[in-house]
């Protein structure tokens, strides 16, 4: 399949390793990956902070960049939620302005092929095992936009469970917000910190080495506290775990179905 990546502004700038991992997984699965060069931002930060007229101006660029895509894959639950929840009404406003004739129809045609990364794997491709190997204890943070916004359900965890060598531990209060909330984290820094404290307690209680999620914005926030407190616990986007593979010398054994030694190192895409 021809897969177009919408990397999103913050992943492009702050988390390029997530994009690289996503490309790796998609190509490993045999898909042809494209990256439309003129892409920037989905408009979420502006929209959710109240600058909706500014967000509006970002939609035509998105449509132009991804027009005719077979599938648009995005490594961010919140950006996809933004697009699904608000692009239809934003398109209507643009169309009504008279400057963008036909944009409603274009958005309606485009949105059904826009997928969050894990969603693309589980729902569009029907996969759970993507051939990853990651011999570590991992806990998964569901992200509000993944859980409630996109209704990902068990999808991301089903992908993780299929990873060879993984020790997946359920995060307590998995449905509760970590306190990031975009500009909320700086506008209400104190409350955000209090929410984060509870989330970090939960992560530490699992004994996990890695906290994974489908959204680097939550992870940036959780990681920030894990690092400040010198917990030694890392965060990784789901794509990075799925991109991890055995070292070449043991890869053959894995492929041939042999049990992998517990102490072997995985190639981690970071």
């Amino acid at each position, binding site marked *: 399949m021809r897969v177009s990546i919408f990397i999103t502004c913050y992943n492009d700038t702050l988390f390029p390793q997530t994009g690289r991992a996503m490309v790796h997984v998609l190509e490993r699965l045999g898909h042809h990956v494209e990256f439309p060069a003129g892409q920037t931002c989905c408009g979420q930060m502006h929209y959710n902070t109240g600058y909706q007229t500014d967000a509006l101006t970002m939609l035509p660029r998105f449509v132009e960049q991804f027009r005719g895509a077979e599938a648009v894959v995005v490594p961010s639950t919140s950006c996809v939620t933004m697009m699904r929840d608000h692009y239809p009404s934003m398109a209507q406003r643009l169309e009504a302005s008279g400057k963008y004739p036909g944009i409603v129809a274009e958005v309606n045609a485009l949105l059904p092929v826009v997928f969050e990364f894990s969603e693309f794997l589980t729902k569009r491709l029907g996969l759970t095992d993507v051939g990853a190997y990651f011999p570590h204890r991992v806990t998964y943070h569901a992200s509000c936009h993944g859980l409630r916004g996109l209704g990902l359900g068990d999808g991301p965890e089903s992908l993780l469970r299929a990873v060879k060598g993984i020790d997946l531990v359920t995060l307590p209060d998995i449905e509760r917000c970590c*306190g990031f909330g975009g500009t909320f984290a700086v506008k209400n820094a104190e409350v955000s910190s209090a929410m984060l404290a509870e989330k970090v307690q939960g992560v530490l209680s699992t004994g996990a080495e890695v906290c994974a999620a489908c959204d680097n914005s939550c992870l940036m926030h959780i990681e920030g506290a894990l690092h400040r407190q010198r917990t030694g616990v890392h965060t990784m986007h789901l794509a990075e775990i799925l991109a991890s593979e055995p070292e070449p010398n043991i890869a053959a054994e894995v492929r041939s179905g042999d049990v992998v030694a517990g102490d072997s190192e995985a190639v981690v895409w970071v």
Partner: protein
Amino acid sequence: MGLSTDGQALDPRTAPEFQTAARSVLNDAQLRKNVRHATTVIQNKRAKVVGELPDWQELREAGGALREHTMKFLDAYLEQFEANCTRAGGVVHWARDAAEAREIVVRLAKESIGDAPSEVIKIKSMTTEEIGLNAALQEAGITPYETDLAELIIQLGKDQPSHIVVPALHKNRAQIREIFQREMHLPHLGETPQDLADAARSFLREKFLRVPTAVSGANFLVAETGGVCIVESEGNGRMCLTLPRTLITIAGIDKVVPRFADLEVLLQVLPRSATGERMNPYNSIWTGVHPGDGPEQFHVVLMDNGRTDVLADEHGRETLHCIRCGACQNACPVYRQTGGHAYGSVYAGPIGAILTPQLQKMEHAESLPYASSLCGACYEVCPVKINIPEVLVHLRSRVVERKTAGLRVLTNAEALAMKTAGSLFRSERRFRAAQRLARMGQGVLARKDGSGEKWISWLPGLLGGWTQVRDLHALPDETFRQWWEEREKSKKHAGGAA
């Protein structure tokens, strides 16, 4: 300690903004423990009884559609209610605002009281809290007795409600006992919840049997019959509705429902959402006056007080669908940390964050639409499917409109930053340049940690909130698009060589 309310009504016009109020509450360990405990317990109870109904989503759907329908035909239903209530012997009054509502209630109470001692008994009512009725009654020389246990705790403790359904949720049993010992003169009062409830029973019993005037709110007004429905647990509501000679009910105009049969939906979703019960102990429905049963005089005050302003905003009007169950408060991770007082209004939590700014002038509550991480837990539990995050975002845009009108944008750091970012995102070239600049600019801030990774532990200005408790991973040397372009180039080279 914490945010003292000192018996002063929570008034958005004078309350500190949410961030400031929250900061002081976050240091109150006892309050936070009480709020965490209470909201966790109610959430779990709610989840259990909601899980018992396989048609829960259909009930929410019906509830939401019913409320939307009611608002669409609100004027017709209000007139229908008025006509039917009047026919059944009730007297209907209208109030444009809080002052008018207070004036009507005080006048009716005085007429009813006559020569009797100047007292009224009251059922818990957020609407009377909204208009500060108790203070108005006291000013007129009338003593109001709150009869709901939680409201009694609030009244005797000179406190303010912090939750729509469980107003004293921020107090634990030891704190409540202290208040009762002091105010009811019961030095030997026991400490179990049962002891405390028993104390309230004997304290109020005498008043129920004696005071001939009651004031209540309403859960629902039935247009079809002119009936009123009140939902409660303790029986204090029934006491106030049936024993006094005069009953004065005050309700927002949003409380109307079209037909009696509509209660079959609302009385299923409300108790399960509010207290996690299949049905609360008592629902009372009455129509006007009924000879030989209940009050001889019955008044209903229909109050606007900003509700029509909410109705006029097509994106905000679904706020009026609220049936005051409080489920959004219990589910909210922000409320969980701060409790209700930080919201500076009798309506706290997610519903308060959208209701208060709309009922008041926006400038009195500009911080409230931002008091949310937009996590969506409130929408998920709302029994009438109010899309609270959507309304929050809409109200944020109204705040921004006000703040950035004309040249004001130039004096607002956030607005300037957002406008600049907007212009970057409109051009890929400018976006790339900004990525480069940011990487250069972080030079002085980024420090290597033990493992050699670069982290930022201090940020200036608006972003300072971030680094109070978090580090920030330094920007990597290469953006994704740079990596991609390099890769494409080398692929081309490889392809060309082959």
